[in-house]
């Protein structure tokens, strides 16, 4: 069992929390203008980092507030905990949203899945 430091309640057992996956994924600015590819990115594609990962948790049976955490996905060591709306502490990890932007999928024309007849 992991021990988490809730920013509001202090150290509590993992069983008091629920997982929310990758942190810092913003709702699209212009949802009406997204292509199917971009919607797929928003809905189904998340970073799956091996190493330091920025993720969200909610303290379900405590203060019931969401917060962010930087955790190593190999050792499960918790490096930092910070509130919603805050950026990860310097030097721990780039915000995953920025990572995602700098590492797009292969260009659409090179993506054979775009040219298949559909399912």
């Amino acid at each position, binding site marked *: 069992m992991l021990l988490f430091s809730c920013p509001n309640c202090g150290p509590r057992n993992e069983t008091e929390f629920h997982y929310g996956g990758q942190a810092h994924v913003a709702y699209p600015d212009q949802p009406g203008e997204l292509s199917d590819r971009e919607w797929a990115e928003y809905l189904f594609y998340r970073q*799956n980092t091996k190493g330091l990962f920025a993720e969200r948790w909610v303290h379900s049976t405590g203060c019931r507030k969401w917060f962010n955490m930087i955790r190593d996905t190999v050792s499960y060591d918790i490096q930092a905990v910070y509130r919603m709306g805050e950026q990860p502490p310097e030097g721990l990890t780039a915000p995953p949203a920025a990572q995602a932007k700098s590492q797009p999928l292969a260009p659409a024309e090179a993506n054979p899945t775009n040219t298949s007849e559909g399912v």
Partner: protein
Amino acid sequence: MTTEHLPEHPDFLWRNPDPKKSYDAVIVGGGGHGLATAYFLAKNHGMTNIAILEKGWLAGGNMARNTTIIRSNYLWDESAAIYEHSLKLWEILPEELEYDFLFSQRGVMNLAHTLGDVRESVRRVGANQLNGVDAEWLDPKQVKELCPILNINDNIRYPVMGATYQPRAGIAKHDHVAWAFARKCDELGVDIIQNCEVTGFIKDGNKVTGVQTSRGTINTEKVGLCAAGHSSVLAEMAGFRLPIQSHPLQALVSELHEPVHPTVVMSNHVHVYVSQAHKGELVMGAGVDSYNGYGQRGSFHVIEEQMAAAVELFPIFARAHVLRTWGGIVDTTMDASPIVSLSPVENMFVNCGWGTGGFKGTPAAGLTFAHTIATGSPHELNKPFGLERFETGALIDEHGAAAVAH
């Protein structure tokens, strides 16, 4: 201790060759899926100048860690087709591979504990029968007849209200399955290269032409990824992303007991599934740990909860002991269905996303992925399981639909 009195080392089942400079195809990952893919590439498509590259030892990943449940009673047509094909292959593979890997069709029961469960289960039995998958609905008394050690009293928190039953489902010896494929692959000329980690890909434009490994650079016409929990890491090396999240999944065994448990019992609702291995240990597993993880271990409360559920369902287990617990890294998708697909990189193909339930799919994954690699387009059975479904929205949502996802 002297070695004088030790017997001769038995014959090895496969060679341990050094990697060649180049191959027609390279499979990354020497688990069940990599082995089955290489086998069908050689057998069905005549591609024998190929290699399996495994960073550790053969089948030491999820293939060594799973609870070996094999069944095909999935809800949707696409799933029923591929998993039922897989089950049919399981039925002929011991003979084809000339290896008795103890495939035991002792049946699998999926328990229903709420009215909602009952309705979903009865619906699934109907869907299964329409798809030619053997399936029955059992009332609690029939459940008890088939598995006398199950507690069907209605004074427990989640009483057993019935179960779906697939008689042809069962379990197999996972290590032996891997060795059976490995020996045949080797006979057919496939190089199985262990302790060979893929660390990068060589590309010419958007086309893959080689792999960098801890044992040097290898040129290849084609690359097939079968890396289960590490699929995202490899895709990132190749420059694309996958809709996969890697989670720890844990299991445990008890000490050896007399045979008491005749079938396989799974409960989605109370999160436990139990069988008794051939040697006698009780084998149990549950759901994934909630967080992303590559650590091959999870949190103990998950083990504790699955044991609590098991003891309520099987009071006879109360005095059994946990002998070992362990974890694997499973590659989950949002729709709980696998990806067997072309990829955004030319000549690179991905087989992943089998998550918590890909042992049963080993033969069909191998067959369809080999077809996809050899011909450059999907087999009829894996067409619906392409990456494009996340864009078209044609998801195959087996979450809940297929009972527990193992």
